[in-house]
């Protein structure tokens, strides 16, 4: 019986230590030292929160860079993916649909190669990035609509390019939301 009583006391002690003190102290320090990041890296414009730097958004209008397809439509209340396997007919159908719309929106030929990330949905449904290739592919369309030169558009993309850390950690990528915000400023 002694061990059962000890089990109870130890359980309470560790609950307090690891379930209350640990997260509360860390939250306290986080709110002091990394206030912005600890609260979601939010982007504020005109005193209104318009999103988070880390969370992708849905873009459909042609004057914006488009993000990746999302199984949850970027709603954010629950994250998730399509979970379609490589031999799923639905996967192939979805990919075909996305490829068709990317080709028609960007006036590409029907044999053009499309970067995989732009037409296949992400793991979180909230992927904030697209690959460099996917951004460059959309540049002519947006330059034309916004009436700026392609050269300037590409410069803007490269300005927003996130490079792999120490050359080997991560992929070359562009944050769609911050790039589009910058477009608005132009």
């Amino acid at each position, binding site marked *: 019986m002694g061990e059962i009583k000890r089990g109870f006391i130890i*359980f309470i002690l560790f609950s307090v230590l690891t379930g209350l003190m640990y997260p509360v102290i860390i939250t306290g320090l986080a709110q002091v030292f990394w206030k912005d*990041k600890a609260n979601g890296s939010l982007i504020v414009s005109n005193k209104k929160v318009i999103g988070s730097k880390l969370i992708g958004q849905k873009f459909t209008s042609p004057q*914006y860079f488009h993000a990746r397809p999302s199984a949850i439509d970027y*709603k954010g209340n629950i994250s998730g993916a399509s979970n*379609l396997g*490589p031999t799923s007919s639905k*996967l192939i159908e979805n990919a075909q649909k996305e490829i068709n719309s990317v080709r028609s929106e960007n006036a590409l030929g029907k044999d053009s190669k499309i970067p995989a990330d732009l037409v296949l949905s992400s793991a979180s449904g909230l*992927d904030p990035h697209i690959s460099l290739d996917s951004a460059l592919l959309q540049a002519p369309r947006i330059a034309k609509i916004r009436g700026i030169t392609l050269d300037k558009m590409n410069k803007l993309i490269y300005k927003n390019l996130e490079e792999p850390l120490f050359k*080997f*950690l991560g992929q070359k990528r562009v944050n769609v939301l911050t790039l589009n915000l910058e477009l608005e400023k132009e």
Partner: protein
Amino acid sequence: MFDILFIVLFVLAILISGVFFGEYMAKVFRGDKTFLSPLLRPLEKFIYKVSGINEDSEMDWKIYTLSFLSITIFSFISLFLLQEIQHFLPLNPERLGPVRWDIALNTTVSFVTNTNWQAYGGENTMSYLTQMLGLCVQNFISAGVGIAVLIAFIRGFTRNETHTIGNFWVDLTRSILYILLPFSIILAFIFISEGIVQTFKGYEVIKTLEGLTQTIPLGPTASQIAIKFLGTNGGGFFNANSAHPFENPTPFTNFLENYAMLLIPVALPFTFGILLNKRRQGYAIFCVMMILFLGGLALAIYSEFQGNPMLSKLGIHSGLNMEGKEVRFGIIPSILFAVTTTCTSCGGVNSMHDSLTPLSGLILLFNMCVGEVIFGGVGVGLIGLLVNAVLAMFIVGLMIGRSPEFLAKKLEPFEMLMAVISILSTPMSVLVFSCIAIMTSAGLASLNNLGPHGLSEILYAFASPTGNNGSAFGGLNASTLFYTLTTSLAMLIGRFTTIIPALAIAGALAKKKFVPPSSATFTTDVPLFVWLLVAVVILVGGLTYFPVLTLGPILEHLFMKMGMSF
């Protein structure tokens, strides 16, 4: 090129830290002074004093098991209740209601057994208080229990003619205080500085640049993610687990999360060698794990880079399989993460395993099906491999015609019985439950994919809980009554048939006299032993699962090559 550098540096990093951390953990469990002792020793003494534990008293294996069961039961009651009454409790800014009873039960079993299978969706089910005081606490305790039991298991080999195998409370307290907690704190701060959220504020509901409504979920996440990986737990704060940008925002956090999963499991073989006073034995065990790890990794990376020919035909560049992967990670880090998480029984994911190419899926299934012994969960992984070693030495004994022994202890029927229970329970649970699922409409109704991939989904849904892993082929709807109850059972079987036989073996071995080595003793710290153990793991796993793996991932691979979809 840089991708290869990534793998090489990663393996070097875990190897180096493994050696040092292994030494550190050995010190902790021998009760030696460490650099953290001045800070933590008073707290440790305080815990013993309040709970009436005599540090120097020892337990036999039955009392040790009873103690383990006692904290497990209190954990169980507390976590279940927290989920059911969370709407009456503070720190619930989203006013989430009580969790449906079978999902609450499943989650309770899942976190108490260090599985962390997610039948629930984090951000729309669990209040902040449930996450902290329920899930986070179990992240620590269930991991601490795993390490404690391993240390007791090792004592079975180091002790001579005694009936005790240590004090469970002391082992547990030291695991949490000296190993899990301090390194979680460091990790949590790095995570926050990279963008993982840590706040008690409620969710932000915003209008996006195009005027659509979006919810931005928040919470005390970083503190939980740190222990989620360090304790090979793997339960996500959010539904998408570590694919969610708030759980894994940058390639750097991804590297750290991957690294944290392996830190303790890689170091434990070294700890084992030191405690045993046979360092070479530790290296040999480490080599077995590393060979199996790298072999699987190589095949999975190869498979993923082959891409999907059906996507290639549509016009996707290289047919690259980016479905269910995040751009900031890319292919190799996603695969490394997937292989690590299935080897270590962590279960945290940064890509959706359901959407991986079939042969990558095969590797993940294999890693779990062999019983989570390739590094494995903290503590229990090494136990699993050592039990396999017991089996290997039994086979050796038969081959060379000597009564079998391992590490100077004779292996007799009782130990072999326990070893066989431990090893066979995994395939029994995985295959029998999968069979039931395939034969019932309740089992098939949850499928998200058809054809051979559907079989893989079901197999994964029982391999993962039985291995106490927790990752999933997430398309399968695991929140139906059928799956919440069957996977709960699988998790309990997985946990208890590892820990209880291990403690029984430890108790039996501690009682035995050391057998003095002779010229005919089969040495177990040489390459021959390493390859023998690798073969035993592959053969036991391979032969048992070969038929079902053929009908699942292998068949799917062939269909994919032929361009057939379902």
